[in-house]
């Protein structure tokens, strides 16, 4: 029995190290998955779906990942309001409680009506504000602040919250 004691202690030590590592790596308060929202074709209803995270759990990485998932939207075949197909997330900068999402110029072609604009950004804002400590979203287009999309409706030069919709 005495001979097993060192091995047992080693196992306990490894378990403690693994546990500590797990909690340190999850200090952003993000679990194994995030909730991403898309807007149904009615332009108002938000639908959540869970997306598994990779190994990176720090908030800036998770925020970027969440933004890319929101912009990509749900799998094809799902009736959803979607950003233009080529829209990319250029950056996601977290300064809690606000995250700034920089989108590529491709988003400008969504200025096609209230439903499209509102639905796109509502899904993005709901997704980002589902992250811990985030309550507002600032939108940039190709690095620049914009009042609206060209010819658009939605005011984008102030932080968007869930109450904006």
């Amino acid at each position, binding site marked *: 029995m005495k001979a097993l004691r060192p091995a047992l202690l080693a196992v306990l030590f490894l378990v403690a190290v693994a546990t500590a590592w797990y909690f340190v790596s999850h200090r952003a308060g993000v679990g194994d998955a995030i909730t991403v929202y898309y807007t149904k074709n009615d332009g108002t209803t938000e639908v959540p779906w869970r997306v598994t995270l*990779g190994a990176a759990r720090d908030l800036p990485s998770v925020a970027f990942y969440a933004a890319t998932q929101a912009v990509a939207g749900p799998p094809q075949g799902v009736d959803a309001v979607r950003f233009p197909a080529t829209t990319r*997330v250029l950056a996601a900068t977290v300064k809690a409680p606000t995250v700034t999402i920089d989108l590529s110029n491709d988003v400008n072609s969504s*200025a096609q*009506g*209230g439903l499209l604009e509102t639905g796109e950004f509502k899904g993005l804002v709901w997704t980002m504000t589902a992250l811990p400590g985030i309550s507002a979203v600032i939108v940039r287009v190709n690095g620049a602040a914009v*009042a609206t999309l060209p010819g658009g409706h*939605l*005011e984008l030069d102030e932080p968007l919250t869930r109450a904006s919709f």
Partner: protein
Amino acid sequence: MTASALARASAQVPAPAPAFWFEGAPLTFEHAAPMNGDVAVGIRDPGLQRFLSRVGATIAYGAQQRYVVITANDRRTVAFVIGDTRYTVGAGAMRAAFAPFAQNGDVALPFIALARALSVEPIDIPGQTILEPQLGVMDVRPDGRRTIVTLHAATPIVAHTIVDQSERLQVAFDGVGTTLLPARKIGGPISEIDVFATGNARTPTATVTFAGAAGTLHRVASASPYEYTVVFGPPDVSLDLRLPVSAPSYARGEASQTGSPAVVAMPPANAPQPYATDVPPVGGPSGSYAPAPAYVAPATATPAGAESPANASAPSGSATPAVVTAVTFGPADDAFSVHLTINGGSTYAWHRLLDDRWYLDLANATLTDAGRDERPDSPLVDSVRVRQIGTPDAPVVRIAFTLKGDHRVEAAPSGDGLTIAVSAAPDDATARIGTGSVGGATIAQASPPAESGQPPAMDGTWKFGGSAANGPPVNGSRIIVLDPGHGGGDMGTAHNGLIEKLITLDISRRVRALLAAQGWIVKMTRDSDIDPYNPALLPAMQTDGLPNASDRAYLQTRCNVANDVNARVFVSIHVNYSPSTSPSGTTFYYTKPQDVALAQALERAVIPAAGTADDGVVHANYYVTKHTTMPAVLIETAFISNPGDAAKLADPAWLASIARGIAGGIDAYARVRPPQTSRADQ
């Protein structure tokens, strides 16, 4: 071996450049190195960018974070994490030959793993790797009694039909191979789908055979160049698919079309004839009388706590209509009068138009006789018409005059009814709308709003406060501002042969005509195909520290048309769009709390008039509704992307109908609501 060690190794030891062949041409990477059986390629490599562009994928990576996300043309995401060999393809987890790593501001990805995730299969031949696009995804979806099959390829595909019979369809796709199962039993309208590949790695062909069940039909559709969709179903089921609508991109044009906002207080000569579709003209014998507005707000078109015009003048506490039993004309040399004999109580509202027309609506009243058309021998009156209008639930008797000049018209209750007298005296009163009652009826409306410091009228004769002697309100509260969305280089949305900027202008002109005929002063932010823009706004907006001065200047110009005159309401008229053909209907967007009642009034009036689906009153952070200082609503009238709605938008009769609804909603709201004077008051 760590990622950094691999990076150093790849940087220090020149590796032979991998030779790739893709779609009939070499694919060359500027920065690539073999690594653990894969190839490390920087995400900024032009070769990788060309590859991604061809397969319709986009790549996203931002500094200070660890994810690299590639979005495929079918919206699947491929997510790598710097420093981790695990990656995801959609919901599936995979493991790469090496972990992506950052180097010199770039990130190297395992290219072979990425290509496979995007349905491109590397095929090694001596001295070269051929990247063969695959018909990689088959989605079989039951849809009621139909079955929808969508084939998805890595690159754009063109189908060559080999066999096309009702129960059997065979198509070939050149340029793509396939990793799909060779055969699968389906059930339902499709018995089986067989897939096989022919050709070689450089010139592959994938062939797919659909075997339908007995008696089935099929229809082919495609929503994107990467897809092929076929629907199988029995003959009594529609095989139509609602496919997404492609969205063209429109940018604002040059700001060269500078124009001042149009200010109009009466219908222009070429304005659309109001109510032409549902109210017969009430012209005199000569036919010279233009149709007068016959709007009666639907009973449901009343804001909570307010009264519609019809209800406002209905006898309180009585739903029994008054009856006009006789109409007597009394011409004289220096005056002209009409006497209505009325059984029961009623209220009335009179309107003086700007072109010497005058009419009176007797609410909740019926006419025992047919209407009258008279052209009296009078120096004062050209013609007089008496008509039953309204609806069975809200009947109205209208008496309309076409005058021979600016003569005074007065309505006064008498013992058995109402007398309307036209005198030779010039009409020096500036009021154009008034109300009154006969037979003891009371005006059941909210207290008239106080304006210009005037106390509310106590006798119920004025809708807008003050009196004729006091002159018109000076704070612009009788002004309605209409904003035809888009214009000039900003087309708005365009589909089905329709262009939003032209439709919004058409509807706005119709609404203007209707409101002006009811005595409102109507301003429009534009009255032609321009994007209204006041250059004077730009310098201030460039120095105020806020972004996007140019776009704000455009939008603020529209807002200022209303703000500068403290308009009663601001209504912006638009056409909606969706990437799907499914959504339809009318939406009423508001931003400020005080917009809600206007939005609801518009909803109640527009939906019955337009016959569109009611998409509701919706809150939105829209610029024009936010930066106007009075109640403001943005109406998305219908969906240009929906076939049914598009047909409506192309129909002038429907445009007249929705214009009638909008005008009715504005009128119902504005005549019983006090003006909002400033945002600080809200």
